[in-house]
């Protein structure tokens, strides 16, 4: 019998805020000098108190709304007690039994993945060890720039059934977070950290197997690879008659494998305690309504509309709806009078790979020039680049460069005759039956007259040769 994989995801996301969760320090960037974004509060000095960052709460509520979560009226913060040098207060402020939101879902490729909860907490600092792990290192250094940075924890139900699905879920989540402006969600910058928990069971079985939780994953590719590795590792363990140990495992990108980090047998008792320094929050219903109204169209809904309203193929709609900026560009360009399918092609083929976003007016102008046959596709590419760089209208650029496509037959005939005169051998070859000689003639024509309309020019050439 075959194995079925069951995957749940715990994703930590840094909401877009200027300051930390409980103090006025800047959230800072990766690569800031160690301990440069700290104050007495996030350093856990004696006597300090936390004050909740409203922007973090707002980002969390927006995320919860976008995920269709219920938002209970009351929520509170709890202390998760454990001692570690990266945790200045000896406890992490998190949310235990009354999270900010519960029971939502995210649609991934037409399937609903249930969301158990979305809550807020604070990040810990970072340890740098001279040598091996903390317990063996001769010296360890503590950098508390990250300590107190707000994090949203988004926990899914174990609804994912393959490494592909898990990766697609994470990508869809990133798209959603960016669309609603809750987070920049850059995995490489540590703004989105995915921790899948993975177990196997016999196909057809309803009971869950023993799961392992994977950490240190910092790209979608790594997420995919780590899950595949862990699936085959667990399969091997089970098929050799062993049992999977419930534990946290790290992913080593360099070695392409997971390794045991912490066994749940020594699971710590976190002694959760409602934080007496933070009064319970009562979320104002009017505020939630205001946030709900202000939410932009979500990627799933937009994808559907790109198909039904603009007639895009599903594959194009997925690609364009995944990026709010591209989707906005598409719709605005179409509104500016360009045809939808060519606009989609230009966005997918040219704009997205270059990462340089033209204004919708300019893109529409360009697409119209190409569609009308006024310039060639190759010319269009050049014009687009110049337009993005200089901010000028494509029509103006085309006019200035004389990039206008030559479609007038009498003018073209002069060029075609010149090509034939310059290549008597090729003309002879063609007339003698070597049809491939036409290619050489067309190539020369393109060199002499790049603005020539290729279709009209080749018709003319054939006529003059024949």
């Amino acid at each position, binding site marked *: 019998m075959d194995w079925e994989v069951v995957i749940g995801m715990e994703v930590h996301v840094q909401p877009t805020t200027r300051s930390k969760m409980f103090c006025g320090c800047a959230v800072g960037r990766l690569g800031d000098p160690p301990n440069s974004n700290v104050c007495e509060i996030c350093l856990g000095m004696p006597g300090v*108190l936390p*004050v909740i960052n409203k922007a973090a709460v707002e980002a969390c509520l927006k995320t919860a709304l976008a995920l269709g979560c219920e938002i209970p009226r009351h929520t509170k913060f709890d202390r998760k007690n454990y001692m570690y*040098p990266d945790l200045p207060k000896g406890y992490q402020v998190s949310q235990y039994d009354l999270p900010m939101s519960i029971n939502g879902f995210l649609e991934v490729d037409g399937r609903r993945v249930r969301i158990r909860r979305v809550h807020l907490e604070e990040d810990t600092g970072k340890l740098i060890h001279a040598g091996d792990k903390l317990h063996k290192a001769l010296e360890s250094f503590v950098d508390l720039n990250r300590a107190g940075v707000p994090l949203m924890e988004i926990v899914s139900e174990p609804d994912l059934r393959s490494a592909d699905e898990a990766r697609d879920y994470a990508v869809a989540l990133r798209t959603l977070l960016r669309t609603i402006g809750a987070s920049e969600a850059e995995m490489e910058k540590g703004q989105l950290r995915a921790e899948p928990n993975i177990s196997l069971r016999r196909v057809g079985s309803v009971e869950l197997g023993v799961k392992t939780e994977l950490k240190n994953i910092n790209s979608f590719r790594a997420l995919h690879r780590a899950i595949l590795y862990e699936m085959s590792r667990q399969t091997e363990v089970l098929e050799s008659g062993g049992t999977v140990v419930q534990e946290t495992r790290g992913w080593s990108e360099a070695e392409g494998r997971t390794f045991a980090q912490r066994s749940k047998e020594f699971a710590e008792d976190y002694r959760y*305690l409602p934080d007496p320094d933070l009064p319970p929050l009562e979320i104002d219903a009017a505020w939630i309504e205001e946030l709900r109204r202000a939410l932009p169209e979500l990627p799933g809904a937009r994808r559907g509309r790109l198909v039904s309203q603009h007639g895009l193929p599903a594959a194009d709609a997925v690609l364009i709806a995944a990026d709010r900026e591209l989707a906005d560009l598409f719709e605005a360009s179409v509104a500016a009078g360009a045809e939808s399918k060519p606009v989609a092609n230009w966005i997918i083929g040219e704009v997205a790979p270059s990462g340089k976003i033209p204004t919708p007016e300019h893109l529409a102008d360009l697409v119209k020039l190409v569609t009308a046959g006024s310039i060639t596709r190759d010319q269009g590419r050049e014009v687009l680049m110049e337009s993005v760089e200089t901010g000028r209208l494509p029509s103006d650029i085309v006019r200035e460069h004389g990039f206008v496509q030559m479609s007038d037959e009498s003018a073209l005939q002069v060029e075609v005759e010149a090509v034939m005169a310059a290549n008597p051998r090729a003309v002879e070859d063609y007339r003698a039956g070597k049809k491939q000689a036409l290619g050489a003639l067309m190539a020369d024509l393109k060199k002499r007259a790049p603005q020539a309309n290729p279709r009209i020019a080749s018709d003319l050439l054939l006529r003059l040769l024949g």
Partner: protein
Amino acid sequence: MTDLTNLTELTIKEAARMLRLRAFSAAELVTAHAERIERLDHRVKAFLRFTPELWEKQAEEADRRIARGDLGPLVGIPMAVKDVLCVRGVEATAGSRILSGFKPPYTGTAVSRLFAAGAVMLGVTNCDEFAMGSSTENSGYHPTHNPWDLDRVPGGSSGGSAAAVAAGEAMIALGTDTGGSIRQPAALCGVVGMKPTYGRVSRYGLIAFASSLDQIGPFTRSVEDAAVVLEAMAGHDPLDATSSNRPNDVLHDFDAGVKGLRLGVPREYYDVEGIEPGVKAAIDKAIKSLREAGAEIVDVTLPHTDYGLAAYYIIAPAECSSNLARFDGVRYGFCQDGQNITESYERTRRKGFGTEVRRRVMLGTYALSSGYYDAYYLKAQKVRTLIKRDFDTAFEKCDAIISATSPTVAFPIGSKTQDPLSMYLCDVLTLGGNLAGLPGISVPCGMTEERLPVGLQVLAPQWREDVALRVARAYEVASGVKAEVASIPSPLGGEG
């Protein structure tokens, strides 16, 4: 220059008037206190450390303000600060060895507000380690002696602050009250001590013991002085999410007297187990004097009083076990290295903390452990709700509650140190006020036959500091009992 000998016996109000009249300068006032400290404090041991640079600078600034005609009531008034309050650059240790050498990089809100009001800081006063105790014997440094009898404790945990004010070493001392740590030492030292409503004064800068119970409050030698200090430091603080933005009208109807007020005497407090006859006699006299001043004395009941002590000794240690986790020797204070980080934690905390602190950290850790949380912490929170309800019901029948502050007078040093439970009983009449978040004040109400002070406690509904102060003030006026500066006999004969 004026004769400086009795400048240390003035109230704030008297001193402020004389400063304005240029009878003496702020510099002279602080010098008088410094001299008295120099003469007496090696025997009282109220202070842990002094801040001469600060007081010189602040007194100079105060004299400049007075010269400009600044009429602020606290300009130039000498103040002592309990060792749990952070003042930028001044070593703050919470009476603990684990924080030795720690100099906060910031000043807490209550202290900065008093600095802004012109108070002059003399130094840091002794206390039980992390404010855990009722005698100041748990200090990691040395015990403090009661100025009325140097062989006895000053109470605690803010014993250093109470003793400093009683000994004429400071006009204001700040304390903190988690279960009675301001009111009980105020009673035992014969001074006024006030614990405000939870949330009235910002806790920012207060080294936490039990966050849901801690409040900062003043020690003074008159009720009016206490009100003035409270008014200056109270009010909403954006740095403390539990601080209230209610109007700060603590002096409302201050001198209106008690005529027409109903004062409740809870029978559980009146007949509390272990109450000393001398204390009871003083309280009876106080009740009589308030009745004669026009108050209606009514019987009330606080049926869950017996459970209060148990609930308190779950909730406070639970919060302390979490609050004290940050003292790990990694970033500041004392550190004892080990073979690895766990051993370093263990050694640092075993050597850095005293017995009582370790006991409470263990109690609290246990109470929060999985499997025990519901039976202890959750149950204690439910009891806390019942105790709040007791007070709510009582306050339907009365405007304020009066009782003894402490069942006993100051006890001999060393007499309770071997028996933590008997020490815990010192707070039996005060900790209800903390569990319910009420404002409470202790005012001197005479002496026992052995010349030891007794305190009268007035508790008022939440946010009604004005009522507590009004009743305390009325008692002060009606009884004629005033906080006095203790005269401390010199070992060579004569008086200090």
